[in-house]
């Protein structure tokens, strides 16, 4: 892919649109009744790993804020900020792996998943509940339980969907030279 400052602007816009569509309209039932799997975090992890922390932060922030707006309940800031923090932390892995060059090997998958686990733990185990308490004065045990359940489910989703997307993206970059037709 080409590189230019405008690419990042567009990646944020399209990333946020994808985040929105997956978060708002794509419902995959999860094992917990009445809850859905948040596919958008697999996407966010992938986009952040490809475009870096600033893009990750803004995709999470804009995408999540737009979802809240579309439901009409205003913005639930604590969770929006948590999404942004996850995107940002996840973006740090872009310095370690070379996904943009189409490389994604076993050890890269390991780093990717290490970062996503740490990112989700910080975002949902720490940021979201603490902000819920500070901003909305909600009871601590409620928000921490919510955070842990959400975080764990997001970790599984990201591990499967995010890793799949990275593998697919890396292998969609054509590499020449090693292929021969077989008869």
């Amino acid at each position: 892919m080409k590189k230019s400052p405008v690419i990042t602007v567009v990646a944020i816009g399209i990333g946020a649109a994808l985040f929105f569509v997956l978060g708002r309209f794509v419902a995959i039932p999860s094992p917990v009744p009445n809850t859905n799997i948040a596919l958008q975090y697999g996407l966010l992890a992938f986009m952040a790993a490809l475009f870096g922390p600033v893009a990750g932060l803004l995709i999470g922030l804009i995408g999540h804020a737009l979802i809240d707006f579309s439901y009409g309940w205003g913005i639930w800031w604590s969770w929006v900020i948590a999404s942004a923090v996850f995107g940002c932390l996840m973006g740090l892995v872009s310095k370690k792996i070379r996904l943009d060059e189409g490389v994604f090997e076993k050890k890269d998958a390991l780093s990717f998943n290490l970062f996503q686990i740490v990112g989700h733990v910080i975002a949902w185990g720490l940021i979201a509940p603490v902000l819920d308490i500070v901003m909305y004065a909600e009871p601590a045990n409620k928000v921490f339980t919510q955070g842990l359940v959400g975080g764990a489910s997001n970790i599984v989703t990201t591990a499967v969907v995010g890793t799949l997307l990275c593998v697919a993206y890396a292998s969609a970059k054509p590499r020449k030279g090693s292929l021969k037709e077989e008869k």
Partner: protein
Amino acid sequence: MDDIIIQFEHFGFQYHAQSEPTLHDINLTVRRGEKILIAGPSGCGKSTLAHCINGLIPFSYRGESSGSLRIAGKETKELSIFDISRHVGTVLQDPDGQFVGLTVAEDIAFALENDCVQEPALHERVQKAAAMVELEDHLRHAPNELSGGQRQRVALAGVLVDDVDVLLFDEPLANLDPATGKAAIELIEQVQKQTGAAVVIIEHRLEDVLHREVDRIVLMGEGRILADTTPDELLSGPWLRDSGIREPLYLTALRYAGVEIRAEMAPRSIRTLRLSDDEKAKVRGWFAAVPPAEERPPRPVLLDVQDLHFTYSGKDHETLRGISLRVGQGELLAIVGRNGAGKSTFSKVVCGFETQQSGTVRFHGEDMAALSIKEHADRIGYVMQNPNQMISKVMIFDEVALGLRKRGLPEDEVKRRVEETLRICGLWPFRSWPISALSFGQKKRVTIAAILVLEPEMIILDEPTAGQDYRHYTEIMEFLLTLQKRGITVAMITHDMHLMLEYAERAVVFSRGRIIADTDCAAVLTDPAIIGEANLKETSLYALAGLCGIADGQAFVRRFIDYERKELRP
């Protein structure tokens, strides 16, 4: 003042990621007010050349250039992309990608906003540009409220807000139906007359661009300029034949009739073409000599659709308003009509993606209403336009196997059926390749193979050849013919008139949710009422028949089709 606006001198370019240069020793001069057509097959370097002219190279795509390229007298190496865009306005191939504003007005204003143009100049200039492309009544419309042709006009207005010296069009006809394409070419000429800008059109659909005069055609191949001459010279010369570019259909017919094409005949357009009495007689003689094809025996009915009605939820008008259609086993038919006429919706209902409000779809006499989307796919397969929208696996084998595995077949059965399908589709030599290593046409085959492996008796393809040059087009269509020979029924949704004429046995014409014609292609493409209603374009063969004094133009077109099928593809 010098009127040369673009000048390439011994120019070459190599992308950083590639081992070979993409452009070699390009020498090309464009003057103010000129109109140039750059043609060539996929991969000939014409898009790279366009990127060099509009500045995306070297500013967005890195690489090594040699020689000199001057725009308005300055070396592009010394300019920024912003300097270049003051001189060159680009209309990209994909009107959705170029339409970045939320409404028409905002998109037209985009370049001005970036230039910090303030009110009231901002609104005035948008208004003026919109008027030039006749969109002043659509300023508040969102992109999905516009047709493909209108979106393209927005793109044009978006570059006309600045007074550019060059208008660069990258494959302007690729996404348009025939009548809209014709209108686009007329609009380009009109805008050029108003602004005096030079026009550079990159396009491989020669006959459609030549609907209006161009000054020169630059033919490219393998990164070099093969010819740079007037349309008359080019069309009568030897270059086109083996370059993967299709010559205008009337010239093909003339060659079949044994008429030698010379520049003095003004072959650039059917309207300018001059034939001697002798040559006309040759055409008439050929017409008389080709025997009419025998009537095909009627085929048993495979798909029987009765009075289908369909409305999308949330819409207040019906998209399908009583469609009845019979498709025979082993047929190859074209479904045509303007955008939004209901062609795609019809296919989606037939494939079980959407459910009709009333009417029946029978397959081998069985009502399909009770079948699931998966069971529909075992009978009728649907192939999307863009193969990238269907491919979800890394390896070819896995992609083709997906549907079987999801149906829970044992792995040895999966292997057997996938391998057989890969052989049929000519993908056997590539069976262990990653899909990313394939060309567009090969990817298309993979998506078709992934559908065929489920052994449907019929497949529906949405625009199977969109955006393909002649060589790839032929490759895909010949492949579909081999499928038809194996007994598979093929229906194609298409805007491509050549495809209809050359391959389809029958054309079904949709308009506003109804079928307005269901007959052979020669009849459709020579009937002005249908052509107008469905945004098609009369075939130039019909005009050629008139020029040669053949009264029954439709019979002439039919004869041409029969000749091609019999003589060239026995």
